[in-house]
């Protein structure tokens, strides 16, 4: 074969090889996609069969039991007890959220700008409750707050109170317990937001003559807003669905929606009302998340 033949052959072969390569790439891409779908399948199947399916079943009870229709929602609206529980749930969540932000802000600030040693120490202090069982922490709070517990001993010992204060089985106890459990959820988003702030902004504000307080309020605080909103949303949503904390630390007047759902099922076998309450709980959580998405964007939440 002469060299010119080879060249023409190559020229003729060229496009075909390209096509073959393209086809190969397409096959490889399809193979990769197929493989990925195969890897995803078990987790997705579990989600469908053991989560989305059952939750969908529960929510659909709201409209089908005891019979088809909206009777559960009508009852929910008309019965004083349910509305009181819904109000409790929202009010308690709305009270716990600002307390968490106020306490979490200085911690996140120190975690961001403190010395490396302080930073590591604080991260650890916030992570410990994050990893410790909710039940164990709530039990610890019960011991701390009980009538002759350490906190009351301190109050009475210091003469701050004449007799032990009622700190348990009321709103005070519930809030002390809930804030303790929820603090990590605000500290980490706040810390992440503060890490993203360019220190030059504060320098500029201070150089241009703003006092430290003014610079903080007008420049720094607005920049932390995505973190504040993310943390607030996480706390608010988590509190809405709380079961263990209100059951152990709250009183009958602090009954929240999760306890009512449990009662409907365990005591009355009323799956219709349990479904309706669950749907309401999910709807409110979803609405709050949607608000966060519209203001901050869920991307900022994910990271």
């Amino acid at each position, binding site marked *: 074969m002469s060299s010119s033949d080879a060249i023409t052959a190559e020229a003729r072969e060229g496009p075909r090889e390209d096509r073959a390569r393209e086809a190969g790439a397409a096959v490889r891409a399809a193979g*990769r996609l197929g493989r990925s779908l195969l890897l995803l399948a078990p987790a997705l199947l579990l989600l469908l069969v053991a989560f989305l399916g059952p939750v969908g079943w529960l929510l659909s009870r709201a409209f089908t039991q005891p019979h088809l229709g909206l009777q559960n929602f009508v009852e929910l609206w008309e019965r004083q007890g349910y509305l009181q529980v819904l109000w409790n749930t929202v009010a308690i969540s709305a009270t716990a959220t600002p307390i968490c932000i106020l306490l979490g802000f200085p911690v996140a600030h120190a975690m961001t700008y403190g010395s490396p040693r302080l930073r590591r120490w604080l991260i650890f202090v916030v992570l410990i409750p994050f990893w410790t069982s909710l039940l164990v922490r709530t039990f610890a709070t019960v011991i701390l707050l009980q009538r002759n517990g350490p906190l009351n001993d301190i109050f009475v010992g210091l003469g701050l109170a004449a007799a032990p204060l009622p700190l348990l089985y009321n709103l005070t106890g519930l809030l002390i317990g809930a804030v*303790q459990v929820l603090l990590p959820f605000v500290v980490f988003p706040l810390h992440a937001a503060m890490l993203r702030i360019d220190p030059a902004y504060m320098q500029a504000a201070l150089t241009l003559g703003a006092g430290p307080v003014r610079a903080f309020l007008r420049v720094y605080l607005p920049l932390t807003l995505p973190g504040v909103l993310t943390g607030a949303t996480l706390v608010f949503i988590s509190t809405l669905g709380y079961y263990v904390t209100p059951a152990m630390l709250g009183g009958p007047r602090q009954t929240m929606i999760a306890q009512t759902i449990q009662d409907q099922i365990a005591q009355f076998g009323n799956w219709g009302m349990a479904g309706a309450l669950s749907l309401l709980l999910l709807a409110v959580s979803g609405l709050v998340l949607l608000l966060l998405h519209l203001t901050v964007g869920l991307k900022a939440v994910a990271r």
Partner: protein
Amino acid sequence: MTGDGLGGWRALRGTVCGLVALYLIAPLVIVVIISFSAASFLQFPPPGLSLRWYHNLFSDPAWTDSLAVSIEILIPSATLATLLGTAAAHALVRGHIPGASIIGAALMLPIVVPAIITAAALFGVYRGLGLNGTLTGLVIGHVVITTPYVVATVSSSLRTLDPRLEAAAAILGAPPLTTFRRVTAPLLMPAILSGLLFAAVASFDELIVSLFVSTARVRPVAVQMWSNIRGDVDPTIAAIASLCFAFALTALLLESILRRRGGMDRS
């Protein structure tokens, strides 16, 4: 930056941080101290020290059985959650799957949806299947709840991993499985193990789904604690709570070491 008029603010910040640290840690320390109490009620400070509540814990079949049940649930569910979660994370980050972000968000749902809803839903569906009060039923529930943690940990680590390392292995002729086994998995191992650890801790601590799905015969530690806390409380509860705390602390320390090894970012 001293003498800038911020000293007062810094002192305030320090005070709040100190108080918050005390608020987060002190109750747990008090429980650990009470668990060594010699008194038969939850008194602080304890009048004397003893190991009787730990002895009580390990000689009472109600507690030892529930510890065994918890471990029987924890091992399969943490393993399954790690396998399913790692596979899903790999597919989502590297797979070029259309709609990956939506699928990823859907996989996170079990930790966003309040546990009470998941618990009630599983309990309702299990009734027809005879899964209530079975290990299988509990394991399924725990895998559902813990898989999202593994997906989150592994996928955030995968995102920081240079895809060219895997590409290089593939170009050099390694089949996909070999690439994963020899290149991706070793680099990802700290994240996978930390996901496994968190899944194990989350399964051990899980209460609400277990509360609905378990029965008096098959009852994990968390549920046993729950029913005891609401009845007569003696320091045995403090002993088991301290053990749970020690377990969490060990897992957290291990995880921190893994993170440092894997160069994972804490925030």
